[in-house]
């Protein structure tokens, strides 16, 4: 019996969400009194995972798995889960994690809860809390099947160090010819993505035109942040669709979300609500965003943002 976590990696390196998934798996394993196994696929320094409590690290290395493929990755997770008698499998709720999750669930005949935000409130019955209604509520869900799959929401449980001495095993996974083949990947190099960012700087129609985004990018640069935008801005073509955050755009669950010139429509707030600290800058004190934010500045973005950039630069210079 074991808990299995799939610690995803990109170009051989783990992301922070992988450490969070391992931390979470450790908690579940402790509650159940069983071992934690971490599965890695083509990752380099797999021993990093013992810092977060992995008792065993199962390392799969296969060039046929160099590019993510949902069906093949689900099959690898299934093979390891079956060989290790894993009762609970934990996967992150990234774009790829949510692609793989339902496939693993069917393969293991397991009940599946995605976007889970907390450790199980009870393990018998097995109850987890997950996001629902586009961040306007939570659902406590009991998984009734013997095998269980959990998709952990990003930035929800946190990373908890828990150093153990892990054993590392290599695992020969069988891989078949994929039915869905990747032909090319189009990705901006060296840009912080909204999914990975600790800070997101987002702007709306209050900026009046695409030519005014220089200061948004500069502020993001100072903070090491990703840039995002409201729905009207992407609909108007001022910014690419990939930057649209909100209920029908990308979800944001970051440490700090700065909204500039965004009024805060209910659909926008639903998409960004999972962020820990929200700052709003808006000329209109009646903008609904002020009700959802932690900190607010009533003022003109064209006055406030340049000040913020210059003062943050001073702050960074003093604190680095």
């Amino acid at each position, binding site marked *: 019996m074991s808990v299995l976590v799939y610690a995803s990696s990109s170009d051989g390196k783990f992301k922070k969400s992988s450490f969070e998934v391992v931390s979470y798996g450790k908690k579940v394993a402790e509650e159940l009194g069983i071992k934690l196994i971490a599965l890695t696929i083509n990752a380099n320094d797999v021993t990093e995972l013992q810092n977060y409590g992995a008792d065993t690290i199962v390392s799969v290395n296969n060039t046929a798995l160099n590019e993510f493929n949902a069906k093949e990755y689900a099959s690898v997770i299934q093979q390891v889960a079956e060989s290790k008698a894993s009762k609970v499998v934990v996967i992150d709720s990234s774009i790829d994690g949510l692609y793989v999750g339902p496939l693993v669930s069917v393969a293991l005949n397991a009940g599946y809860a995605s976007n889970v935000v907390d450790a199980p409130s009870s393990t018998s019955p097995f109850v987890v809390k997950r996001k629902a209604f586009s961040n306007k509520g939570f659902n406590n869900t009991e998984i009734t099947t013997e095998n269980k799959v959990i998709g952990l929401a990003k930035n929800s449980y946190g990373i908890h160090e828990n150093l153990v001495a892990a054993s590392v095993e290599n695992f020969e996974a069988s891989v078949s010819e994929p039915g869905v083949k990747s032909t090319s990947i189009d*990705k901006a190099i060296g840009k912080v993505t909204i999914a990975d960012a600790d800070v997101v700087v987002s702007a709306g129609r209050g900026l009046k035109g695409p030519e005014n985004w220089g200061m948004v990018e500069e502020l993001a640069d100072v903070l090491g942040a990703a840039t995002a935008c409201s729905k009207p801005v992407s609909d108007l073509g001022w910014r690419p669709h990939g930057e649209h955050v909100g209920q029908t755009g990308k979800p944001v669950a970051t440490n700090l979300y700065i909204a500039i010139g965004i009024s805060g429509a209910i659909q926008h707030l639903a998409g960004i609500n999972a962020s820990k600290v929200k700052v709003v800058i808006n000329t209109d004190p009646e903008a609904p965003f002020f009700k959802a934010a932690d900190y607010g500045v009533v003022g003109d973005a064209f006055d406030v943002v340049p000040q913020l950039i210059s003062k943050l630069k001073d702050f960074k210079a003093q604190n680095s």
Partner: protein
Amino acid sequence: MKILVCISHVPDTTSKINFTDNDTNFDTNGVQFVINPYDEFVLTRAMWFKEKQGAAVTVVNVGSASTESTLRKALAIGADNAIRINAEPKDGMSVAKEIAAVAKEGGYDLILAGKESSDYNGQMVPGMIAALLGYNFVNGCVQMDVDGTRVSATREIDGGSESLQTSLPLVVGGQKGIVEESDLRIPNMRGIMMARKKPLTVLESSHPNNATNSVSFEKPAPKGAVKLVAAENIDELINLLHNEAKVI
């Protein structure tokens, strides 16, 4: 090409979310139900396949009779016929099994669904249908074309997109981009009149087991009032973010 479009019946995105019966049920009082916004994108794409490539389009929903208004809307947008599987949707797995059984029976080549529904946001059902049927599966799909049985598709990835090649039979979890929002179809009067005459078949449930139960609901913890900082005092904002919120 036979296309099956999965339609979720969900609260309108502007709905206030409340719970009743000691927080065990969603309060439908005063809530307007609509076609899941993610499903609207794939339904419109299905209309394109119908008009350009002669596809036949069936819409399907798992739900009680109260969801038929939503299926009629999908018919008014242009679907040829509708199926309602007569069951209360209990969880993602049971809904996927209900739809997979109907999809297999009907011999559909392409099953389209929004990648998630705006009520439970689980992103479960499309992938589960694909896995249950052993069909190919593309999630987060933002573009797709079909040529015979060959399919080229693009999916969203972190920070970009990935181009894919696959083939029918196929399940797609779609999102904005598969058609643009400005191209979404809204029912017109003629469509609404025609929808009344289109077949809406009610099928009995295949009674699959559910794998999860809803125990209770919670609302997010109430948030404290916003702390306002004067526009002339940006130093204070930086101080609060550093010392109080500890995020910079």
